C-alpha cells in the first residue's frame, strides 16, 4: 500500500520543511530552556564538587555559605580539626563582585582560600595552565570564563593580583566564574572600608572615653587595631577521614561546637531545592507555555493543510478509502512535521547552546523526553484536522 502521508510530504516538501524549520526553532528554544535549567543544577553540583568538601560548617541557624550569609571566627577550624573523623579543615570566604582588569570588569565569585596545593578543601581541583596560589597575598587563580589570562593583573577592591593559574568549570550556583585569592586578602576585601570611613571610625573611637583613657596607654591603639582586621570567614570546609560516614562526623560538630554542619546531600537540597527553585519554576512555566504554543502551531498548520485537501479527501472517501486510512495519513503528516521540527530544534539548540553566557546543559535524556513530548503534542494537535477530514462528505466530490 502506498504511504499517502509520505507521498504528500514528498510532493509538498518545501511547505513541510519550511513549516518544520519554524516549528523546529520553537522546539530548539524549548530544549534550550530545559538545558538552562539543567545547566543551573549542574552549576550547583559543580560548585559543591569543586569545593572538595565532605562537610560544610557554617554559622548556626543559617543556610550558608551559598544560600544565606554566614560568619564564623577564622580560628574555629582548629577546634574542628580535633574532632573525630576530620581529616582536613580549611577556612573559606565567598564574595560575588565585579573584578576589574584594565578598562573592563567581570562579574565573578571571589573565593578566599588558604594557599596550598590541590586536594586542600576550597582549592581549585585542577588547573589547565599555571600553578596554584603559593603566596599569602596578591596571587589569583581564575576560571577561563572570566576571560583573564596568565600573567595579567586584576584588581579586587583596592589591591592588584597577578593571575598565576587558570582553571575551568569553577562557577558559582548563579553561573558566575570564580576567582581564587588568598584567604587573608579575601577577608580584607569582604569588609574593607574606604579611607574616609576608617578615619571617621577612628575619630569616634578616640572620642569614646571608655577606649581613650589617659591612665591606660595603648588601649586606644589596641581597640583601633582590632577594628581594622576581619577575623571572620563564611564557612569551614571539612574533609572526613576514609572509612568515616560524613553524617557521623557532622553530628559531634553540631553538638559540641554549636555550629551548623551540612553534608553533601543536604547542601544539594539547599542549592537545588531553595536557591534555584524559583528560577526552575520560572523555566517550568516557560516550558509549559512553549509546549502549548507548539501544539497550537502544529494544530493550526495540520488543520490548514487538511482544509486545503478537502476535495482530494472527498474523492478518496468516494472511491472507498477507509476513514482510518485518511486519519492515519493526517496523523503521520503531523508526526512527520514534529520529527522534522525536532531534528531542526535539536541541531539549532546544539549550535546555539555554547553561545549562551551561562552554562546550558543539553542532556540526551531530555532530548528523548522532548522527542516523545513533540510526538504526543503532534498527535493531539492532529485530532482537530482528523475530525474535519472525517466530516467531509464523499458527495462533495460529485457536483450539484
Amino acid at each position, binding site marked *: *500500500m502506498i504511504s499517502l502521508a509520505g507521498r504528500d510530504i514528498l510532493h509538498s516538501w518545501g511547505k513541510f520543511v519550511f513549516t518544520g524549520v519554524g516549528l523546529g526553532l520553537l522546539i530548539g528554544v524549548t530544549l534550550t530552556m530545559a538545558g538552562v535549567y539543567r545547566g543551573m543544577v549542574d552549576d550547583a553540583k559543580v560548585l559543591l564538587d569543586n569545593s572538595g568538601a565532605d562537610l560544610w560548617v557554617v554559622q548556626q541557624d543559617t543556610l550558608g555559605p551559598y544560600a544565606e550569609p554566614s560568619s564564623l571566627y577564622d580560628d574555629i577550624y582548629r577546634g574542628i580539626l580535633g574532632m573525630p573523623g576530620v581529616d582536613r579543615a580549611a577556612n573559606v570566604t565567598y564574595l560575588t563582585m565585579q573584578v576589574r582588569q584594565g578598562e573592563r570588569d567581570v562579574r565573578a565569585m571571589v573565593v578566599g582560600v588558604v594557599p596550598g596545593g590541590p586536594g586542600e578543601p576550597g582549592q581549585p581541583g585542577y588547573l589547565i595552565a599555571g600553578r596554584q596560589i603559593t603566596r599569602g597575598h596578591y596571587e589569583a587563580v581564575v576560571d577561563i570564563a572570566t576571560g583573564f589570562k596568565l600573567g595579567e593583573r586584576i584588581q579586587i577592591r583596592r589591591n592588584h593580583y597577578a593571575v598565576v593559574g587558570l582553571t575551568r568549570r569553577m562557577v558559582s550556583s548563579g553561573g558566575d566564574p570564580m576567582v581564587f585569592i588568598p584567604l587573608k586578602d579575601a577577608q580584607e576585601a569582604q569588609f574593607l572600608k574606604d579611607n574616609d570611613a576608617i578615619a571617621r571610625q577612628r575619630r569616634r573611637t578616640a572620642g569614646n572615653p571608655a577606649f581613650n583613657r589617659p591612665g591606660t596607654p595603648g588601649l586606644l591603639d589596641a581597640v583601633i587595631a582590632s577594628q581594622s582586621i576581619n577575623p571572620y570567614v563564611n564557612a569551614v570546609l571539612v574533609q572526613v577521614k576514609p572509612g568515616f560516614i560524613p553524617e557521623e562526623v557532622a553530628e559531634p560538630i553540631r553538638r559540641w561546637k554549636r555550629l551548623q554542619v551540612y553534608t553533601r546531600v543536604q547542601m544539594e537540597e539547599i542549592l537545588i531545592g531553595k536557591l534555584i527553585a524559583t528560577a526552575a519554576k520560572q523555566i517550568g512555566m516557560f516550558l509549559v507555555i512553549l509546549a502549548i504554543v507548539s501544539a497550537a502551531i502544529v494544530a493550526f498548520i495540520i488543520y490548514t493543510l487538511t482544509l486545503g485537501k478537502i476535495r482530494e479527501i472527498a474523492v478518496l472517501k468516494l*472511491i472507498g478509502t477507509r476513514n482510518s486510512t485518511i486519519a492515519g495519513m493526517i496523523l503521520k503528516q503531523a508526526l512527520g512535521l514534529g520529527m522534522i521540527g525536532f531534528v531542526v530544534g535539536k541541531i539549532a539548540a546544539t549550535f546555539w547552546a555554547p553561545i549562551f553566557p551561562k552554562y546550558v546543559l543539553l542532556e540526551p535524556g531530555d532530548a528523548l523526553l522532548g522527542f516523545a513530548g513533540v510526538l504526543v503534542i503532534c498527535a493531539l494537535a492532529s485530532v482537530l484536522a482528523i475530525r474535519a477530514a472525517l466530516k467531509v462528505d464523499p458527495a462533495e*466530490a460529485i457536483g450539484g
Partner: protein
Amino acid sequence: MLGKGIRIEGLRKRYGKGDTAVDALKGVDMQVAPGEAVGLIGPSGSGKSTLLKCLGAVIEPTAGRMTLGEEVIYDNAWKMPDLRALRRDKIGFVFQAPYLIPFLDVTDNVALLPMLAGRSNAESRNRAMGLLEALDVAHRAKAMPSQLSGGEQQRVSIARALVNRPPVILADEPTAPLDSERALAVIRILNQMALQYETAIIVVTHDEKIIPTFKRIYHIRDGKTQEEAGEGRAFE
C-alpha cells in the same frame, strides 16, 4: 454479477421534513445493460446530481429499489451494509474535473484503488499500466497530475474508474472542460471501455456535442426520468 448491469425501480429521494420537505426524485426507473453507455440529461435542479449520488451509493434513497447485477443495493428501507466497499469495488467514478490525487504520480493514482481493495502493489500497478496503455497515456505513467494536459488527466481518471473492473461507471459531466475534439475522444473511450469490460456507463451531461453519440438517453425533469432513443452517431 458482471454482465447484469444496473437497474433502479421507483427510486425516490426526499430532502427535509414536514412543510420544508423537497422531493428531488419522484420514482425514477432506469436500466443500463453491461457494455452500454447511456446519457442522462436534464436542466439544473431536475435531480441529476441527486440521482447520481443515489446511484453512486453516496446518499441513500428514501424509497425504491436498486440492484447491481444480482446484488441488491437498496430495497426501500433496507440497504447494503458496506456501501464504502461497494463504491470501491463495483462503482467507477469519472468527474467533471479529473480530481486526481495531486501527490501521487499517474500510475499510483490509478493503482491506488486496487491497493485499497487489498491487492498487492505489483498486481495493482500492472493493472494500472495495462489500462494506461489502453488509454494511450502509458508514456506519462511517472508524471504528476499537474504535468498532464486536461485530456490526459481525464483519460487517467477514466483508467482509475475502470481499474477495479466495476460493473458500472458513473460519469458526471466528464467532457465539460474539454473542447469538441477531446470531448468526443473521451466519450469514444468510455464507449470502447464499456464494450471491452462489459461495464454499464451512465454519463450525466449538458454537452450538446456529445448527446448525439448515445444510443439511449434518459431525460430527467422534475424528479422523473423519461427514456428516449439517441442517435448513437459517433460509434457507427
